[in-house]
Structures are given as C-alpha cells and as structure tokens.
C-alpha cells in the first residue's frame, strides 16, 4: 500500500505588521485562522467530514490565542463536528512541525486527511506573553547559557565574521525579491484575502514588504540587541565562544525577520483521500527531520537538519532544486549557505521573512506553500524547507512534485 503523504493545497493569509493599529490587528487570531480554513474549504468545496485532524502551530497560545485555538477555529469555520484540532509549539518551527506531523499521520496510515499550518497574531498577543520555562528561570538560564535570540544571531555573525554590510545586503536582496515576486503575482495563488464579518476585504496581499530598500537606508538603523548584550548576555555568549573578542551588534529591525500577523494551512492527505476529494496531489512529502545544536548560539540548526533530512531521503545537496530557509536573522541564512554550499540562486528566490515577516507559529506552513508554488512555476522537482528554532533546534522537510 502506498502510504505517501501528499500535499493537495497550501494557502496562507497575507501578512501585515504585528502592531495594534495595523491591518490584521482588527482580526481576532481565531478569526484569522477560521477565515483561512473557510477559504480552503470553499476553494475545493471540501467535504470537511473527511478531515481527521487539524494541526496548527502557535507559539503564544495564551489569552484569545490560547486554549487549543485550532479546535476553536475549526468550530468557528463551521467544519464538521468530527474534525479534531490540536495546537503545538516548537517555537519558530511550529508551522513546519505541524506539516511534518501531518505527513507522519498519513505515512503511518493511521489518518487519511490532515490540515496543517499555524497562526500567530503578534499584534494582539505580543512576543513574551506565553512566559518561558527557559529564559525566565534564572537557574536554568545560567546552567544552559541562555541568551536572547538576537544575541545568538549577532554571535553567529561574530563567529563567522559577517559584517553589518553583508547582512544588510542580504536584507536588501530579500526586500527586492519579495517585492518583485508579489508584484509579478507569484503569491496570488496561495494568498487568500482576509475579510471582515461583512465580507468586506481587510487585507488582500502582504503589506509589510518595503520595496526599494537600500543598503544606505538600512545603515541608519540602530542595532536592536546592543543594550541587551551590554547587560551581560555578550559575556555569557563569549564564555561559550572564547574564540571571539567581542559581539558586534549587527542585527537591527531591517535585517531581522519582521513581527507580523498571519496564518497558514496545508492540506496533506493519502492518495485515496485525494481521490475521494477529486483532488490531484501537487507534491509528496519525501522526508522530515528535526535536530538540535548548541543552545547559546541557538540558530545554527538549519544546516544539520538539512543534512539529516537529506540522509533520510537518500539524497544529496545537489538533488535539491529550491530552498526556503527562514530569514529569522540575516546571519542565519548566510551561515546556512556557507554550511551547505547550496548555490544562492536556489535559496529564498522570492525573498523571505526579513521582507515579509515571520508570524512565528504560521511561518513553516507558509514556506511550504511558497516553495511549492515556485517549484511549479519553474517546473522544478524537489525543494527543501528549513528553519532555525529556539533552544538550538533545527527542522527540515523535503517535498517533491508528483
């Protein structure tokens, strides 16, 4: 029996600034997700009673985003009572973890149709709202060398010797690629407009992108993590990486991922589920992997995760046609490229989170859709998605068009 996990559809909301007053801040997180689920349902006239489970990443599952928001969104969307829902948290990997778990559910043969992705309203539930067993606990923080992620990003730059200019050049690349892709309509297949209770459109496409960004303009931005570093986190970092003399604070709002609101949903199912729905599979999930690295530098997981998933799949770096690596910080992508030696021409060809934003729990699902759309547009076969993750983790997934 063919237990392949197929991707039948991948949709997302547009992303907008994760600040009260911005476009999507007038939408409750549950409505953001429910609206997307409704869009997915109506696009394919989906018989929702065939869906076994909905798996959604959400990194700040508290307040109006708490209490298993997935099931609430499933109810709000009016899906069949039999559809279950679960919310998971693997920090920034949550959205991709959701897709991977969905693929595993299908591959095991224990479920037939699963929707996976994530939701994050960073405007209404700001970062930090969820508390932390790690950074907020002084003893554990001490024992494990905890530093905030921005310090880790700056630490990567220090260890690798990336200059501010190099990072800013990458940020400009992200902006120009993203703007070009949006304007060329490359995202329009997968981005569903967010509407209000009357069906009046609130946001139809990403509004966070800043086209025309230049290195000169970025050079004026103040480093974001200097104060934190001077507080003592730089010293903690250097105690773990004695080879560096100083942590230069090279990351800022312009070369780090944007704080935004958004949601994603990927329809993953077995071959027979697709036949029941009358849908043609767009891709197959080839393999998935998670791993973890040293926690202080924290954001170096994508390379090892990529090697691990390639080994699982029996593939080499050269077998990958396109890569989406999450642009949490510019240094993360630069380090990933250096480690894997994947040519730049294959990496984040339509920009990334520096330009469009990183709605924590939702991003992984969004990257799967962006990758699949571009593989189809270029008529290529195989792609890889990878993200750096809190605690030093890394995650990767390989998909292949069928």
């Amino acid at each position: 029996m063919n237990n392949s996990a197929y991707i039948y559809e991948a949709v997302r909301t547009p992303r907008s600034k994760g600040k009260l007053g911005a476009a999507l801040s007038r939408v409750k997180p549950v409505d953001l997700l429910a609206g997307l689920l409704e869009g997915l349902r109506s696009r394919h006239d989906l018989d929702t009673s065939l869906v076994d489970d909905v798996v959604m990443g959400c990194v700040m599952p508290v307040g109006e985003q708490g209490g298993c928001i997935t099931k609430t969104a499933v109810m709000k969307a009016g899906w069949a009572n039999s559809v279950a829902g679960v919310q998971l948290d693997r920090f920034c990997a949550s959205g991709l973890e959701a897709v991977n778990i969905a693929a595993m559910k299908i591959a095991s043969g224990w479920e037939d149709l699963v929707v996976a992705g994530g939701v994050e309203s960073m405007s209404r539930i700001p970062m930090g709202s969820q508390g932390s067993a790690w950074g907020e606990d002084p003893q554990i923080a001490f024992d494990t060398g905890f530093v905030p992620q921005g310090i880790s990003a700056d630490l990567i730059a220090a260890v690798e010797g990336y200059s501010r200019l190099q990072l800013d050049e990458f940020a400009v690349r992200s902006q120009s690629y993203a703007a070009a892709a949006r304007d060329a309509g490359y995202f329009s297949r997968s981005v569903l407009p967010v509407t209000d209770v009357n069906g009046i459109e609130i946001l139809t496409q990403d509004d966070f992108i800043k086209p025309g960004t230049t290195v000169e303009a970025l050079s004026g931005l103040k480093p974001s993590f200097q104060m934190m570093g001077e507080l003592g986190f730089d010293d903690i970092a250097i105690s773990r990486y004695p080879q560096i003399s100083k942590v230069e604070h090279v990351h800022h709002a312009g070369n780090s991922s944007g704080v935004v609101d958004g949601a994603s949903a990927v329809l993953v199912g077995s071959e027979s589920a697709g036949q029941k729905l009358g849908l043609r599979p767009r891709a197959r999930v080839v393999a998935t992997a998670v791993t973890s690295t040293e926690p202080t530098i924290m954001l170096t997981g994508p390379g090892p995760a990529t090697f691990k998933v390639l080994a699982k799949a029996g593939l080499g770096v050269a077998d990958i046609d396109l890569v989406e690596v999450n642009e949490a910080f510019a240094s993360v992508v630069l380090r990933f490229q250096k480690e894997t030696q994947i040519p730049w021409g294959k990496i984040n060809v339509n920009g990334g989170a520096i330009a469009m934003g990183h709605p924590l729990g939702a991003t992984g699902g969004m990257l799967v859709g962006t990758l699949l759309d571009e593989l189809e547009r270029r008529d290529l076969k195989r792609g890889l998605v990878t993200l750096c993750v809190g605690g030093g983790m890394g995650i990767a997934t390989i998909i292949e068009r069928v």
Partner: protein
Amino acid sequence: MSGLFNYEKDADGIVTVTMDMSGPVNAMNDEYVALMAETLACLQAEADSVSGVIITSAKKTFFAGGDIKSMLQVEKGESERAMFAMNLQIKQQLRQLEQLGKPVVAAINGAALGGGYEICLACHHRIALDSPAVQIGLPEVTLGLLPGGGGVVRLVSKLGVEKALMPLLEGARFKAAKALEENLIEELAADADDLIAKAKAWIKANPAACNPWDVKGFKIPGGDYRNPKVAQMIQAGNPMMFKKSRGLVPAPLKILDVINSAIHVDFDTALDIESRVFTSLVTTAQAKNLMTFFLQMNQIDGGVSRPQGVEKSKVKKVGILGAGMMGQGIAYVSAMAGIDVVLKDISQEAADKGKAYTGQLLQKRVQKGRMQPEAAEAVLARICATADANDLQGCDLIIEAVFENVDLKHQINTELEPQLAAHGFWGSNTSTLPITLLAESSSKPENFIGIHFFSPVDKMPLVEIIVGAATSAETLARAFDYTKQIKKTPIVVNDSRGFFTSRVFATYLDEGALLIEEGVDPVVIENLGKAIGMPVGPLAVQDEVSQQLTVKANEANFDLDRRLDQAHTKDNAAYRLAKRMVAEGRAGRFHGGGYYEYGAGEKTLWPDIYSWYFNSDVSLPIDDIKDRLLFRQVVESLRCFDEGVMNTVADANIGSIMGIGFPPHTGGVFQFINTYGVQAFTDRLQALAERYGERFVPPNILLDKAANNELFM
C-alpha cells in the same frame, strides 16, 4: 439643503456650533456629514484664534441619532458598503473634533440619544440641562443595532467594562440627573443661559483638554482582558444574554463582542472593529424588524388609527364596573394618570378590596423610592370604592369589567348608562364578545366601544380598542385619547369574534394541545415554544390562562353561535384537553395545577400527562414543531386581516408583540413575513398544510402579496 450648523465665535475665541438641520430633528445622515465637514474645516482654518468649541442644538432635542428610515433601505452588497463608508467618515470627523487640540463641550439642551450621545462622547465635557426634556443614552440595542458612531468604544474607554455594560446592553434612557449619577455626563445646568455659561467656564478652565484615550499610556478604567474580573464579566455575558433572548437577537452579543475587542486592541482599531460589526447588524432581519417596530410604534402612538378631525379629549372621571382583577388594574392605571375613579362592585367589601390593590402597588413604588408617600396618598384618594350606582353620576367614561356574559353585560349597561355625563361614552372590557351585540342594550350605541385590557393591567402596555357597527368616530377618538391618557398603546380593531389578540393567542394554546394529542413529548413542546422566542411554552401559558377559562370561553362561544345562529366556533384541541384536564381536577395554575404541578420550588410537569398521548416513537422534525407553534399565530393574523378585523399592518404587529408576547425580534406577525420572505413563507405554509392540515393553508391575502411581490407595509 437648508439646514446649518450655526458657527459663532465670541470675543474670547469660543466657537458655539448650534446644530440646526433641515429636518424636524438633527440626525445622522448625508446632510450631517456635510455640515460637520464644513464646521471642522472652519475650526481648523482659524485654529489659532479658537480657544474652545461648544456643540449645542437649535432644536428641542439635542440630536436624534441615526436615520432609521435610510438604515432600513440598506441591503447586503453595495448599499451596505456605502453605509460602512459613511459610518467611517462620521467617526473620522468625530475623531478630528476630539483631537482638535481645543476643549470641546457638549451643551446638551434636549434629548441626546444614540448618535446624539455619541457626539457628546467625542467631546471632552458634557453639560446637560436639568430638564425632563433631556434624555441621555444609547438605545441602539433596542433597534437590533449597536452604537456604531464610537459609542461602544468610547463608553467602555470612559467608564470601564463594568459600568458600560448596562447602558449598552439594555439601551436605557437616562434623565439628566441620573445620567450625571452614572457618569454619562459631567455637569447639570439650570437653564439655557447657565448651560452656555458653564460650558464657557469649563473651556476657560481647561484650555488643553483632550480625551483620556488620547493620552499616552491610557488604560481602560477597571482594566482590560488581563484583569480576571473583567474577563469573567465578559464570559458571563453570553450565558446571561442567552437566558434572556435565547440567542434570537444578535445585537446584545455583538455589543459584548465589540466591548471585548475594545479591551484587546488600541482605541482606533477598536473603533474600526465597531464599524464593521455595526455594519453586520444593519442588514439582519432582527434589526430591520426592530427598527420597523420602532417606526410603527411611533405611527400608532402618533394616532394613525385615530379618526382625524375630532378634537382631543380627556377623561376627568371614569367609572369602573367590577372590582375584580381587571377592574382593579384599570382603576390603578387611571388614578395614576390623574383621573378620578369610581370603582363599583356589588358590595362595598368587594369594591374596597379592589381599591386596596392600588394601595399595594403604590406602597411598593414608595418602598422602591420611585414615588413620594404624599403623591401615593393623592393617587389612592382619587379612587372612590363604592357599591352605590349614584356615585357614577357624571362619569365621562364607564368601563364595564364584569363576567363574560352577554345578558349580564346588557343588564348592567341598561341600568347604569344613564349615569354617564351628557357626552360620556361606554366601554366594555370584553376580550371576546362582539361589541355590536353588547351595544344592543344601549340607547346610544354610537357611544359604545370595546376597550380590551390585558392582565396584569398595570404591567401590560397594550389596549385593544374594538369598534362596533354603530360606534362613532368621535367615540373611537375619545377611547383612543383615554388610552393615551393612561399611557397605554392603543391598537384599533373591528368587531369580530375574539377580535384580534384573543383569537391569535388561542392558536398558540391550540397548537400546543395538538402536539400533545399527536404524542409529542411535552418537554419538547415547551422547550421549543421558548426557543422560538415566546415568553413561555404553550402548556405553561395554558395553565396561566387556566383550563377552566378555556372551557368557559369555548362554551360561551358555542352559546353565542346558538344565539346568533352562527357556526363560528369549532371543536379544537385546546378545548378538548382543557375539558379533560378539568375533569381530572387540573383546572389551571390558580386552581391547584394543570399541565404542571406547582409546588414550593420550580414547577414540574404533571407526570400523568405522559400516560395520555405521549408516544416515544413519534419524532417530528424540530423545525416543524417550532414553525407550527409560531406560524399558527401568523396564519390566524392573516385571516383576521383578510376578514377586515384590522385596518393597518402596524396595529397587527404592535398588538401581537405587546399584547400576546409574539417574539419582539420578529417585528410582529406581519413584519415577520416580510423578513422571512413572502414567497418563502407561503411555500413553507403549503408544506406544513400538506403535512399537518388545512389550518396552515396560506390565506388569500398572503397568496396575493406573494403573487404581486409585495410586502406587508
């Protein structure tokens, strides 16, 4: 467009904007938007020389609020989007006003309700004239809407969630002093000069005024969603409202939803959300129905059914015959309206007992602090309890409220009619007997009319006036005026068996009884009666009416048929079951029990009823049961209309809601059809007729309306 916002700047640079729109009242419409834009442009242009702004009105009312007639025209789609755009514009203007950087004072010289009070909320200070003409509040919820001009967000931001809930969810109107107490306004003024003087003084004392939500670091009083007390209040709102409205009216919940948004996001985002949710309500059937109800209430109270050309009259002395439950209630409401009352019964003792009822009601009012003891004394002193017919001498109006017996009523009329003043008129508080028949004993049948009260009279707001064959227009006008005098709402119907309300009301009881006979679980019948929005299920209502009364009323009707040689009354399930219940000693709640047993605690169904017809194999679709219970009443109303019992759609709609508890969110028996869809309703009736019998066959008037694609207006 001849209206204007009069703009006058004094020597101190204080601009007084006096709203004087072209209509009879100031209202939120296109003209308002244009005038406000002009005013803001002037204020901004000469900002340097302006020290403050006073907003007041040239009309008797300050500002009337939204334009209901134009909101009724809004449909999903283009007009909805246009209304949304205008709403955003209104808000943006008010935002500009409050962010002018100059102190803005609302000088509230008359009623400021809805949109009117929303303007006041966008000012920095509110001073109201301490006059009975001033009413303040946000009654939008009663129209199925929410305050969409910033009212929800500003009130929550001003008062906090706890204090804002009641004014928003109940839509109460406050007198000036009470509004001050509730912090809806900040000051009272004695007269018009004082109002402006105080406004100017406040402006001078507060040159840098701005609203608290525009100050950095603003926090909603009492806390936002992170305060567990606030979160609990919001959470408790849903079940509390469901208990009250059974989920049939969306507006209160939407208000709560906007309140909840207001404590999650910033002020401007909350305003935007409020507009979107407001827009979603305008096109709902419930809002259209409740707005129509509001307009039709105005029509009725404005005298649409009162003959024109008859001078307005007042009753000075009323005689009431029979000091039973109805008579004593009529005595109370009449005395409260300042009318001298002669309450006559056969014995002095019975009459005194009737008067004592007024004493009890007054005492409660005094205890609740709603009336001064002296005033209560004065009301009670207006009632003369007597057994002496001569005390009726000179009454402008005599209302007979004795047993429903034609001969008795004839006899009393013959005996006491001569006591009436020269131009006096006679009213019968019958709920079912034809007025034309009762007037046969009268020497002046043109002065004879039906004045049908509902029980309990002091609480029920409706009076059904029945015009007999000989009743003159003048008598009708006077009965109408009396009803208004005692602050009731009069509907006018023509003479027919059961008139309008009793006839329609009986169908609810009958359909409940039919469902029992068909074997449906009584619990299901009761729950579904409540689910459609009736105050209680049909079986509980039957108990309140009493099985005994149902038997008597049916027998009286059979007697009447014999007397008039008619075949009007038919055997019916309500009658059959009532007879059987009476035989079992279950004659009604006040006779010790009926369908229910009434112990010390909650009432419980009488278990034996299950052994009569209940059949666990019977399983009717829930929607069928609900529609049968509701639609029977609508079909009967249509038949009444077909037969000419009512003259206007408004009388039927208002009468059904205020007289017999037809669910208010429907807008009444005919408005319900309009929003259900005339053709859709016809089709549904046809389906019900095929399944359940000819009582659901669509009456001709409905078929005509459907064929002509017309509404009941």
